[in-house]
């Protein structure tokens, strides 16, 4: 057997087994080997270059995992080697990273931010891995023709980087053929001496330089690439999550019966049952009542809880009591306490205060123990009579002594309470035992009421989840995603320049100016505007099909959510009515006018109002664009600006309509429309307005001094005309033709009608009784608020900011990333320069 110290060391364990037994030369003769000098030859290597490709990727990953697990086992026993410990360090790093992501996952509120904790972690490790592969390994391979991050597996199956240690590169793993091929690619002349060594040196140098570049650039590259990857992933992930969340919400309704089982009320049920069992047949004391009420109304809103309390009070009426032995004892004690201030001896007190038996006898003579008492005048009288007799006897002739006076005074104050409305000590004692007992009937009713309410609570929890996912005023709800998608697409199709976005982000007024300018320019370009309107109507149609079903609350067409809410509340109310819990039933479903304020209606209207508020915001934007187009095209201006209007008033009205549509804030419904107009318009000029480049070419408007501008409080037709211009006038046929077959058309027309009717029909909208068509139409301020929606300029102002921020961030990080990639790639061309091979060739030839 060959003798080799290193070999014998490695052979101490199976893991170190370098050679298969059958490879060992059995008839090894050390003298012969020494004589032949074969002994000093290096041992042939069992290592190999690792060639990972997609086909063996999974098997390599699995192999690595098994290796790590084995390494951990070895390390725990204290038998691991350096390579295994190095791998375990990487495992620790990933474990730490996962812990961070898992913890931060718990701190984030929305699915998107939660999932991005893990995406962030994955992209960070991904970037760490991808950067050297993509921007060093690949270009180096393309330019120099070999893999600078080549891995090899050593004799013990340990994977290492080939060029890890430049003082130990296992060149023997490359065959001459492979090296020569690389040499050819590197342009090394074929006939130089020691060609292999020369190529190896070149390869070593290229690898070393690249490794150094890796270390220098990785610090910048990893966070930048990771951030850019996350940025790129944001939209697809959001889209995926939106679909998933939407489906999840829908599934909640389809599987309502299964979903409610997830809410466990067994603890609540058990507590009630225990409470009722413990107090079975016992009087229903106020404490017991409170405990029952708390149990039944647990997790129910305060308004409904109030109704439940009232119903329970009817079910278990308070106020009737029976006089028990316990009550008599308490009365006796109360009497003793009452006369305490006299400082009488026990013997004397005994003479004054009748004992319990005497009181009992006197009361039974009056038949006071049978039946229930609501008030205690009769038994009090009995006790007072007993007292009076005793006091008279005790005092005898003495009527004037202080003691006698004090005694009489105390007797007289017996019926006095400490404060008005409070029970006296005697009343409290009489109320010791309520007359009503916890009967089986009451218990059963309470149990079934609790059961019915628990079921409703479970359903409401599912409804809450559904409503939250779909329409809550929170990030990443289906409605919020729709809003974002629509508004962002609008911004994109309006094609703002970076400069406009940069300027518009400063404040709403600047944003309004830029948006108006954009719209007024767009409406002059028929084709461009048609494209914009097509995109807009596509968005509105999509919204209608996605969100509008939620607006159907009644009949066969009603959305499943509304159907389920209706049946859940109606069924519960019916069962509660049957149990005489009509107050609770009413607060759940209401009747007549209270139906509007019932819990059921709140569940339904919350969803519909949220959807409407988004829908109307975009309808308003659409209407704004349509109005700007009509003016720009001068379409049937006489209809909205009749010939009997002064030219100056026409110009003022168009301006007011334009500004109101674009900038009128929801709060303007309460502060009224307001416009200062020129007080002495030219009364001879009735000409029509002129339009140029999408804008009104004002002859008068804007030329007057501010001091001459006033508000015309008596022009009750002016605001009517403006309102009709905005919401009542005809829509340009170019637009109507495009949208009349879309799913949102009818709703849009209805929106215009509603806005005209309810905002224009408000008694005190512009001025008191300045009404459209003289008709007053009452509506809630909430409805008007929803009709106004979000003003287009406000919508865009927020978007300008978001857009600017993300663009700015992206351009900053993107430029850094691009710069880094550029430098790294270019550096490749300066890498690997060695002593000129031709020179070597020439030297050799000499």
């Amino acid at each position, binding site marked *: 057997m060959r003798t080799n110290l290193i070999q014998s060391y490695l052979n101490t364990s199976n893991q170190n087994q370098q050679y298969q037994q059958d490879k060992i030369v059995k008839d090894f003769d050390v003298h012969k080997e020494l004589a032949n000098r074969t002994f000093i030859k290096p041992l042939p290597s069992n290592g190999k270059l690792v060639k990972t490709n997609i086909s063996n990727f999974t098997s390599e990953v699995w192999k690595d995992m098994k290796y790590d697990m084995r390494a*951990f086992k*070895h*390390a*725990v026993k*204290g*038998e*691991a*080697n*350096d390579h295994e*410990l190095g791998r*375990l*360090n990487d*495992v*620790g790093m990933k*474990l*730490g*990273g996962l*812990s*961070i992501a*898992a*913890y*931060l996952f*718990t*701190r984030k509120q929305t699915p998107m931010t939660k999932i991005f904790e893990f995406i962030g972690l994955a992209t960070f490790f991904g970037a760490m891995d991808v950067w050297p592969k993509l921007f060093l390994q690949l270009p180096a391979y393309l330019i120099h023709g070999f893999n600078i991050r080549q891995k090899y597996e050593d004799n013990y199956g340990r994977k290492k980087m080939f060029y*890890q*240690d*430049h*003082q*130990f590169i296992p060149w023997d793993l490359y065959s001459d053929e492979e090296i020569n091929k690389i040499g050819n690619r590197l342009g090394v002349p074929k006939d130089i001496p020691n060609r292999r060594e020369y190529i190896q*040196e070149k390869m070593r*140098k*290229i690898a*070393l*330089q690249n*490794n*150094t*570049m890796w*270390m*220098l650039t*990785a*610090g*910048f590259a*990893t*966070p*930048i690439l990771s*951030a850019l990857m996350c940025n790129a992933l944001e939209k697809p992930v959001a889209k995926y999550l939106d679909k998933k969340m939407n489906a999840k919400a829908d599934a909640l309704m389809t599987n309502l019966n299964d979903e409610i089982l997830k809410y466990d009320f067994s603890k609540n049920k058990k507590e009630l049952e225990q409470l009722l069992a413990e107090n079975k047949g016992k009087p229903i004391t106020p404490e017991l009542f409170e405990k029952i009420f708390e149990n039944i109304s647990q997790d129910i809103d305060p308004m409904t809880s109030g109704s439940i309390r009232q119903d329970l009070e009817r079910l278990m009426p308070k106020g009737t009591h029976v006089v028990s032995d316990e009550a008599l004892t308490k009365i006796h004690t109360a009497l003793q306490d009452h006369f305490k201030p006299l400082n009488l001896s026990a013997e004397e007190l005994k003479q004054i205060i009748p004992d319990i038996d005497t009181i009992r006898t006197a009361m039974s003579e009056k038949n006071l123990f049978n039946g229930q008492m609501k008030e205690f005048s009769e038994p009090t009288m009995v006790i007072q009579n007993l007292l009076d007799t005793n006091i008279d006897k005790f005092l005898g002739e003495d009527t004037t002594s202080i003691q006698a006076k004090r005694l009489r005074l105390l007797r007289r104050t017996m019926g006095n309470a400490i404060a008005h409305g409070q029970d006296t000590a005697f009343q409290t004692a009489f109320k010791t035992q309520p007359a009503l007992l916890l009967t089986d009937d009451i218990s059963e009713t309470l149990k079934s009421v609790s059961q019915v309410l628990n079921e409703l609570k479970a359903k409401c929890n599912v409804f809450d989840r559904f409503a939250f996912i779909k329409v809550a005023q929170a990030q990443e709800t289906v409605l919020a995603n729709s809003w974002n998608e629509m508004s962002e697409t609008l911004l994109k199709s309006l094609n703002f320049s970076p400069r406009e976005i940069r300027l518009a*982000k*400063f404040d709403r007024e600047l944003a309004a100016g830029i948006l108006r300018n954009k719209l007024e320019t767009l409406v002059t370009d028929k084709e461009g505007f048609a494209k914009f309107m097509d995109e807009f109507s596509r968005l509105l149609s999509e919204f209608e099909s996605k969100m509008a079903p939620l607006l159907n609350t009644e009949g066969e067409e009603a959305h499943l959510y509304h159907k389920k809410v209706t049946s859940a509340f109606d069924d519960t109310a019916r069962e509660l009515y049957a149990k005489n819990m009509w107050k609770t039933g009413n607060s759940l479903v209401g009747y007549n006018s209270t139906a509007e304020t019932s819990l059921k209606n709140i569940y339904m209207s919350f969803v519909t109002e949220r959807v409407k508020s988004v829908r109307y915001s975009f309808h308003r934007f659409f209407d704004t664009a349509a109005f700007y187009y009509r003016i720009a095209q001068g379409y049937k201006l006489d209809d909205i600006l009749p010939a009997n209007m002064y030219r100056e008033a026409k110009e003022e009205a168009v301006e007011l309509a334009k500004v109101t549509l674009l900038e009128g804030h929801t709060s303007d419904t309460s502060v009224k429309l307001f416009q200062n107009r020129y007080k002495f318009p030219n009364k001879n000029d009735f000409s029509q307005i002129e339009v140029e480049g999408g804008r009104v070419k004002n002859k008068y408007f804007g030329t007057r001094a501010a001091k001459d501008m006033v508000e015309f409080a008596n022009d009750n037709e002016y605001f009517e005309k403006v309102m009709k211009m905005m919401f009542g006038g005809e829509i340009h046929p170019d637009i109507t033709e495009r949208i009349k077959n879309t799913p949102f058309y009818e709703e849009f027309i209805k929106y215009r009608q509603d806005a005209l009717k309810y905002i224009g029909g408000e008694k005190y909208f512009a001025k008191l009784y300045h009404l459209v068509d003289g008709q007053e139409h009452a509506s809630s301020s909430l409805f008007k608020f929803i009709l106004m929606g979000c003003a287009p300029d406000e919508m865009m102002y927020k978007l300008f*900011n*978001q857009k*600017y*921020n993300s663009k*700015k*961030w992206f351009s*900053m*990080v993107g430029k850094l990333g691009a710069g880094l990639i550029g430098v790294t790639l270019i550096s490749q061309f300066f*890498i*690997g320069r*060695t*002593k000129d091979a031709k020179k070597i060739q020439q030297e050799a030839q000499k």
Partner: protein
Amino acid sequence: MISAIRDFSEKNITFKQQVSVSKQEEPQQKKHEDDSLLENNFSTRTRIGLDKLTKAFTIYPAKGLSGNRNSNFYEFLTMGIVPYIIGSASLIAIFNAYGSFQHSAKAKAAKLGNKMAMGVILYGIFKELSKTFITYPVKWKTGIDTEIPYVKTNHLLQESPDDYNLTSIEYHKVGESVDFPRWDLLYGDPNKGESINFRYDKIAKKNGLGTDLNDSDQEVKPMYKEVLIKSKLAKSISSFLWAATGVCLAFQEPMEKYFKAATLKFWKTDFYSQFKTFGKSFVESWGTLYKGAANAETKFEKHAGKAMIGLAALSTILGILNTVHITKKPKQVNVIDKNKESVVS
């Protein structure tokens, strides 16, 4: 010709060994002519840390970029600190790149940016600090210091025909490689009056193998190696979990109090009050991490912080217990027979 990197070579840096060395520096050179142990104290650790840090940003990249034939694995590994530091700074910068954002967006971004920055810093601090949670208990219990540093002198290849006797200095730890610990450095120097096995003797005594052992080094080495391996495993796992705990701490609400008070304008900083605010926020953050955030709903959300701290602490405790539980203790040891004469060569 392979371009020389003499200008960047360590010849001109500390521990150089060349002709132009001044006479005053000679003893210092002499000291590190061969590989030698260094005192494991704060001063040495700081000096080594700074030396490695400086070289990682200067000499080693220069050597690497020029493809120097003397570049080695140690230099490559030392350069690992470069992406760590630059990466941390970049990460902080990316999350705080909101210079020209609108005020409200800026405030929102700053909140997260500050937390990220603090997270990166606490990650580093906790990762390094937590290793001492293992090192010291193991040292107290077994007498084995797993972090003893030594200086290694490399004799380099010629870079140009003029070069001779080029050397470079590396800092390693005796137990850095568990396959090949530097046992030789742990022997005492009889010339200095040290007993050859004095370090091994101490460890043997501490671990109950007794005194006056025939070959304490042979008895102790397997134990030493076991402790090295196990402590490395413990440090690998626990340090990253503590680092994660550091990041979690940075994300607690009380930290925001510190961010409000903190400023990078150090010339305007009242360091005492800054430090106090930080201390207070830091302590409170532990509380909120443990208790869970106020808006936590699910059990997972409520107890995630506890789990994080528990996991980190558990990994340290289990790591220590496993490390100090030495299985490779010799069952029988040979004790020197003092009555017998022996010759030490």
